[in-house]
């Protein structure tokens, strides 16, 4: 399942999520449910800023920060961090926190699995090409 499909499934099953995106750790948007790319890009960069600041605010140590929830009166922001990408979602106020995190983590895992499969098959094709050339 690619990132766009994973997000489409996420917004279909989770009625609390108003918008969501998947981005790499540099802020490049891989998929989003936002109306346009510029908006998604701004939201991705803001989410990474939040993640970086949260990392500074947390206890120092070797334990990795994996999830952030910021609840405001205007709505909540969820950020889940995977190996090489993040998933961010916004909801209204007072969401079911555990459920949103679960759905977001599932979405991130499915999109990462597909990315890994694509990488692997590309590498296999390249290897085949090299062995034919040799």
């Amino acid at each position: 399942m690619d990132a766009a499909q994973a997000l489409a499934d996420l917004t279909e099953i989770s009625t609390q999520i108003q918008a969501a995106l998947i981005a790499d750790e540099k802020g490049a948007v891989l998929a989003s449910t936002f109306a346009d790319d510029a908006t998604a890009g701004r939201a991705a960069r803001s989410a990474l800023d939040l993640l970086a600041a949260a990392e500074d605010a947390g206890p120092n140590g070797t334990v990795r920060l994996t999830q952030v929830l910021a609840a405001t009166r205007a709505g909540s922001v969820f950020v889940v961090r995977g190996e090489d990408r993040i998933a961010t979602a916004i909801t209204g106020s007072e969401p079911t926190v555990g459920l949103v995190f679960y759905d977001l983590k599932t979405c991130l895992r499915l999109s990462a699995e597909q990315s890994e499969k694509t990488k692997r098959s590309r590498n296999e094709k390249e290897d085949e090409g090299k062995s034919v050339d040799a």
Partner: protein
Amino acid sequence: MRSALRWGVVALGSAAGLALWRRSSSKGRERVELYFSDGSMVSFPEDSTEAARLIPLARQVLTSARG
């Protein structure tokens, strides 16, 4: 017997009222929760310095997302 029953009803009603009041007063409060790979979690209430730093960034995400 009747008096004990009455006091029991009053005590139950008070406990329920207190629970409802506590629930409604915690609603709408701003906070930040950080979750770590070892399963630990840190929560910053809205009057903490950490939340004061992180909540504006969360608002920025909401503003960016909602346009």
